[in-house]
């Protein structure tokens, strides 16, 4: 079930909210948590019931391991747990990729097995590994099974994060009050509305153009012009941001409505003034996981710039591979690794004598944006050839291109429809407008959490922390309805595939 679907918004969510909050209001807190856990499993099963056994099985096995670790931390038990989790992830996500590459190296052929990637496996695997590791390093109170199951399966974050740590969620589950937190509910509704608008108004509007250009790059490697290649790349640059940050806003908003606070996943990443800064703002919970469970155990900054650079490269390559079993993701991660290492070198050798001027900040943001956009090409393209075709177009190797501005005529549209629905044969001015709006939004407007003053670590006070509450409430209502009207054809979130 998608957050941006009528089934979720008009059926699942109201019923779940009503039942969970009613039970809580009646003082039946434990029953409300059990119901929420059940609803989360239903949410998962509605999407694909075949893998509900895998999710429940994974929760059970990890719960047993964590129970054993909480009784007595033992490293070998942790390693068994990590092996089980990574084994499952590896089988479902990387078996085909590894088989194909080994076969290619050996000069043989590989019969692609029919393995379907279970939804959310990348996310619930990391979440459970983090608790296994923590429980093996320091004493962790053994959670109740129902609480642990809810921590892993909590539907707002189950499918695409944020990747929540046990210390952030289990205490909240244990101490959830019977009082309905209307302040949190109001903030949640606003965040959900903002996320939905980001998804349907911006991400889904930019998607068709990004798709057409990237698909074009896969098909005709030689002829993608400079303008269309850059517009296609920028369309994806903003599509993925509004898609994923929209999802994260919705997830945080939903959790707030249910009385829980999830960690932030984005902090205005396209305002970043360096690539290091970018990774402190983009997919924060993944960056945090990679830092705490990979980078630091590898040695982090210890040993000087050489080992640190090697650690960064390894972490970013693995981070890239986590997104998908393709060399393009590895290259994407590698490119970011190279940029981060270069950034560290620049910091070390350029020196910082005084604060940056506005001009240098602007140049830094532009340079960071350019680096991020170029790297996204590998992330989005389906093949290395397609990526290179896009980069060739962006480098101007094929000239400016043959883009025509203006609305496509009805006849052009009819022709496109007759050809199979690629109705964007003519670049219309809307794409330029959307990209301009997107730039303005990411560079000028505050992040969603700043608008509602959301702090994951804070508790709700009696007063609404939202500035200009009347206007924000009205805009939220209008935005929510407009987004609902735009949901005629819900599309998946990009990060569901990871």
């Amino acid at each position: 079930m998608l957050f941006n679907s009528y089934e979720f918004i008009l059926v699942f969510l109201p019923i779940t909210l009503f039942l969970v909050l009613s039970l809580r209001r009646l003082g039946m807190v434990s029953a409300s948590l059990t119901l929420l856990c059940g609803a989360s499993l239903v949410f998962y099963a509605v999407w694909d019931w075949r893998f509900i056994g895998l999710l429940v099985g994974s929760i059970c096995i990890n719960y047993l391991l964590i129970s054993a670790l909480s009784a007595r931390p033992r490293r070998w038990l942790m390693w068994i747990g990590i092996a089980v989790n990574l084994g499952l992830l590896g089988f479902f996500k990387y078996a085909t990729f590894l088989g194909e590459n080994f076969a290619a190296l050996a000069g043989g052929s590989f019969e692609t097995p029919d393995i379907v990637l279970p939804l959310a496996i990348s996310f619930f695997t990391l979440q459970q590994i983090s608790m296994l590791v923590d429980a093996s390093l320091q004493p962790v109170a053994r959670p109740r099974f129902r609480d642990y199951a809810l921590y892993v399966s909590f539907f707002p974050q189950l499918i695409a994060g944020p990747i929540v740590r046990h210390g952030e969620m289990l205490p909240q589950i244990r101490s959830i009050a019977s009082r309905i937190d209307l302040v949190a509910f109001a903030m949640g509704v606003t965040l959900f509305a903002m996320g939905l608008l980001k998804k349907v108004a911006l991400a889904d509007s930019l998607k068709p153009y990004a798709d057409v250009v990237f698909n074009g790059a896969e098909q005709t490697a030689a002829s993608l012009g400079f303008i269309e290649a850059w517009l296609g790349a920028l369309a994806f640059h903003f599509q993925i941001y509004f898609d994923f940050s929209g999802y994260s806003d919705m997830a945080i908003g939903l959790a707030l409505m249910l009385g829980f606070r999830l960690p932030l996943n984005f902090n205005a990443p396209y305002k970043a003034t360096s690539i290091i800064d970018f990774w402190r703002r983009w997919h924060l919970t993944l960056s945090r996981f990679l830092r705490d469970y990979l980078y630091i155990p590898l040695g982090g900054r210890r040993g000087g710039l050489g080992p640190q650079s090697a650690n960064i490269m390894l972490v970013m390559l693995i981070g890239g591979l986590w997104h998908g079993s393709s060399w393009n993701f590895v290259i994407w991660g590698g490119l970011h690794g190279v940029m981060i290492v270069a950034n560290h070198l620049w910091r070390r050798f350029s020196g910082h004598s005084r604060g940056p001027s506005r001009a240098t900040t602007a140049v830094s943001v532009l340079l960071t944006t350019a680096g991020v956009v170029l790297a996204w090409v590998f992330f989005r393209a389906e093949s290395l050839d397609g990526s290179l075709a896009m980069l060739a177009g962006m480098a101007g190797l094929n000239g400016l291109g043959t883009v025509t501005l203006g609305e496509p005529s009805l006849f052009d549209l009819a022709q496109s429809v007759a050809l199979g629905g690629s109705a964007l044969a003519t670049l219309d001015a809307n794409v330029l407008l959307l990209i301009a709006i997107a730039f303005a939004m990411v560079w000028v407007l505050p992040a969603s959490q700043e608008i509602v003053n959301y702090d994951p670590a804070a508790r709700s006070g009696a007063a609404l922390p939202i500035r200009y509450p009347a206007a924000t409430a009205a805009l939220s209502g209008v935005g929510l309805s407009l987004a609902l009207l735009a949901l005629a054809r819900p599309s998946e979130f990009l990060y569901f595939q990871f």
Partner: protein
Amino acid sequence: MSAARYIVIVVIAGLSVVAAALGAAVSADPAHLFRTPAAYAEIARLLHAGTPVGELDSPRHRLINRAFIDSLDQAPETVILGSSRVQPFSPAEAGWQRSLSLAVEGGDLGDLLYIYGLLRDRALIPARTVITVDPYIFAPDSHLLTRNGKHASLQRIVGLLETDCIEDFGSQIPLSWLAEVLTLDYVLESLGKLGEGSSDQVRFGPDPELRSPGFIKRPDGSVLFSREIRTRSAAYVDDYAATVLDHPVGRGLAFTSLDPCKTAVFQAFLDLLQHDGTTVILAMLPYHPTAFRLLESDRAVLAQVDGFVRQLAAQRSLAVLGAFDPGQSDCGQTDFLDMHHPKQPCIERILEPAVESGTRQSAAAGQ
């Protein structure tokens, strides 16, 4: 402000938008869901009287067809279903008696069902039904065009199809007009129409001189494309096809395999047609030779559709006419209006066996 008051404002603002959207949709009624303008009945009357009608906006062919079918007093001999690719073909010009083209631009699988459903609802089952099959009707991500109040009729005929896929297919059709009206596109369209200040006026008029710069609907239901399109030279069309299709942004069929559900629905549709006793003829119209050459990456899916159509025809003893490959269809460089719209003579050559077979059948029935 208290949180409770905040939530009340959110709800009121949200409901206001929904109410405003409904109000705009009902007032402007761009798809004529609430009121069918008398103009369409008048267009149908003119067509029945043998007068071509010009200056029509393209997307309204579905409404005209509905009015046209509503005012039919007897079943046509032959009905042609399909997309704009077959619209230029005039059955009357080809000498087909009492035959109608009910093809619509962008006609998808839903349109085939809908238009045949209208005939069926009125007990006007034609003796022959020619379906020109476009590849994209089997595309997995193609959605059904449900404009112009098609819901009820479409739901009805879809309910008659016998296939396990019908739930999937039916779910692509909005359950009611409300589901269509409460969409952002529809609201924006309604607001645009309200902004224009026009009511339900339809620009049209009898145009026997064919001076119209736009589309002209002919009495047999076929469409004469605009003069600008009709007068293109073969060299221009060749260059146009090459330019459009060679452009990476504009090319291709955008799918690589046939949607199993859509193919199942199509088969069930053929079964229904045969059950109704209409003789079904399947046809595939060619692409411009240059376009076909450039659609290199789509040859595989074109071959899949071709093979699927021929397999269905063989299983049901149906006639198959034409092919997507212009080389197999006896159509050359000069036979096209653009990259995929063949001209009358090309289509006539392809469909000729249909009228011959129909004539034979009619004669046999007469004896």
